[in-house]
């Protein structure tokens, strides 16, 4: 059984205040509150006694409202809105009580599910009240008006069964803390941050959420320090999040003692991936991210990642990007052993002796020898429309030291460089 209070001239907070005296779970819609009275049967007694208690509570709060008690929330709301005073419906008699309700009331009640053009159709059919609608055959109505027509008929009959639509409390994923004494060392700060991260992750997991981004604001004596970490996969493990934060703070420590902090986790839907017995192994995303952060702390973030070849003919043009979390599918099996190059970064400046316009002797750092055989030159150029244009002549040269090199001459400066060795 559900009770519904409806008042046109009272504030929503007053309605909620009265309803909260009887139930902690209250559905609030336009000027109407609805709550379950089933648990009150043992405390107060019959529905009549419960209704009189609600009326007394309303009188104490100086609330002028209509009260309706019915077997389902929708019927209770419709009756409370339409009939003044107290309306009691015994289960199974909702259809009789709702019979006199005009159809427009139903459309005003649920404008989301019921399109206005449906009301026009029904009015053209001569259907004006709930009684008229309830008299129509269910199958025929469903065939002509679809699911919306069926739902409308159920509303008119008072047979819609649904739970209360309770408003979930907004969960905060932010923790702020001001410290009595400033912290100079990272270790005690991380101790406090671990507690905060643990609490926030607990809240995330309670809501079936995970964090994609972390924002930390450290209050220093002068300017606050902002830290923002984006995770490649949503995380909800506090140890992983804390380790990433620790690695970041070790690389970029605060320049002054910390007086307080504000930690915020941005919630997103967690990533759920179905593993497979026959799929190849891949590193666990959170573990891999911590590992790469450790390595980045050692060799520098610019030296770790996945190479992406750039869309240009410029030699050795690539960018390093974060390792994608998505699994790549099977790729074509290499058909043959391809000759690879080992690059010199930066290219080695070389002294080249030419005979008949072809390299004869080469000397560079760690490389010296006579050219036994050569191929080239191949002229390449590009990016001439930008300031970073390049033009070069490339040669493949086999030296008497047994190695095969790729050398080139810059056309602009006529300088020679050793670009790579074939290996």
């Amino acid at each position, binding site marked *: 059984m559900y009770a519904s209070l409806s008042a046109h001239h009272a504030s929503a907070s007053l309605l909620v205040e009265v309803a909260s005296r009887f139930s902690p779970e209250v559905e609030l819609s336009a000027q109407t509150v609805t709550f379950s009275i089933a648990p009150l049967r043992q405390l107060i007694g019959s529905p009549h006694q419960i209704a009189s208690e609600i009326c007394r509570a309303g009188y104490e709060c100086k609330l002028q409202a209509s009260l309706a008690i019915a077997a389902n929330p929708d019927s209770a709301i419709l009756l409370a809105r339409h009939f003044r005073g107290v309306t009691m419906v015994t289960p199974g008699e909702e259809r009789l009580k709702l019979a006199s309700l005009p159809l427009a009331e139903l459309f005003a009640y649920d404008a989301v599910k019921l399109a206005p053009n449906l009301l026009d159709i029904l009015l053209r059919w001569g259907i004006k009240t709930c009684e008229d609608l309830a008299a129509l055959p269910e199958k025929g109505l469903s065939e002509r008006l679809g699911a919306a027509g069926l739902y409308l008929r159920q509303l008119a009959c008072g047979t819609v069964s649904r739970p209360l639509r309770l408003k979930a409390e907004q969960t905060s994923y932010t923790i702020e803390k001001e410290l009595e004494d400033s912290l100079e060392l990272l270790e005690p700060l991380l101790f406090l941050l671990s507690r905060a991260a643990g609490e926030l992750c607990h809240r995330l997991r309670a809501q079936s959420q995970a964090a994609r981004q972390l924002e930390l604001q450290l209050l220093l004596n002068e300017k606050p320090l902002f830290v923002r970490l984006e995770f490649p996969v949503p995380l909800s493990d506090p140890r992983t999040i804390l380790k990433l934060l620790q690695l970041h703070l070790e690389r970029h420590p605060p320049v002054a003692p910390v007086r307080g902090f504000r930690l915020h986790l941005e919630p997103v839907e967690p990533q759920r991936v179905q593993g497979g017995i026959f799929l*190849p192994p891949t590193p666990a995303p959170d573990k891999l991210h911590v*590992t790469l952060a450790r390595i980045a702390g050692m*060799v520098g973030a610019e030296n770790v990642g996945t190479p992406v070849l750039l869309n240009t003919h410029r030699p050795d043009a690539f960018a390093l990007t974060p390792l*994608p979390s998505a699994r790549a599918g*099977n790729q074509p099996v290499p058909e043959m*052993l391809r*000759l*690879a190059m080992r690059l010199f970064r930066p290219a080695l400046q070389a002294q080249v002796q030419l005979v008949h316009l072809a390299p004869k002797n080469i000397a560079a750092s760690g490389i010296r020898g006579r050219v036994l*055989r050569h*191929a080239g030159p191949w002229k390449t150029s590009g990016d001439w429309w930008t300031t970073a244009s390049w033009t070069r002549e490339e040669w493949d040269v086999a030296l008497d030291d047994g190695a095969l090199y790729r050398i080139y001459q810059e056309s602009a400066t006529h300088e020679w460089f050793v670009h790579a060795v074939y290996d």
Partner: protein
Amino acid sequence: MANTARWMKASDLQLAREEAKLPALELHRLKPFFPNGLQRGSLLEVNGGQSSGRTSTSLYILAESISRGETCACIDLNNSFCPASLAQAGVGLEQLCWVRCNGNTEHAMRAADLLLHAGGFGVVLLDLCGARSKTLNRIPLSYWFRFQRAIEHTPTILLICSELPQARSCARYSLAMKKSKFHWKGDAPFAVLTALESTAQNNKLTSIRPEPLLIQTGEA
């Protein structure tokens, strides 16, 4: 007298350990040197001088692993890895993690340690080519044992590419490569390099003799 039936020979223990739990990585182009493929959880060394084909062979093994959808890693000691050379094999680079160590051997070893312990990789390539032998000789042997233990019973294969053998007894496979000759097509000034011919031998399988290995440039 104790019951000797309960005792096992050390060699029997070795045999029991060698029973493969995971399918080996088949290398079609290196079948003569690895007839049964590369066993998972093993350490492989590819050694040779400059232009011996050691890098091409290492990248081929990486490409074979990536082509099966596995995630691989390349620890590049001297920043000499050429991503375009790997892409030439026809595989995407999205599942490759590249760590550039700027010539710091300690960083390379620590990065390898971290990646191997993170687990889940198909092949981890530790490229030590170009490092001074004086520096490499300072690496304690315990490092290689640690790596071997880290990948044991895992699907990861550790591939070490260097001039001289480093892991020695820790390595299950050791492929020694030696440059034989270059193949050219045409005469100057229209000559084109077509292939590099090497001689390779799996030193851990003495029954296999050195065999020629042709590494092509892709030029017809």
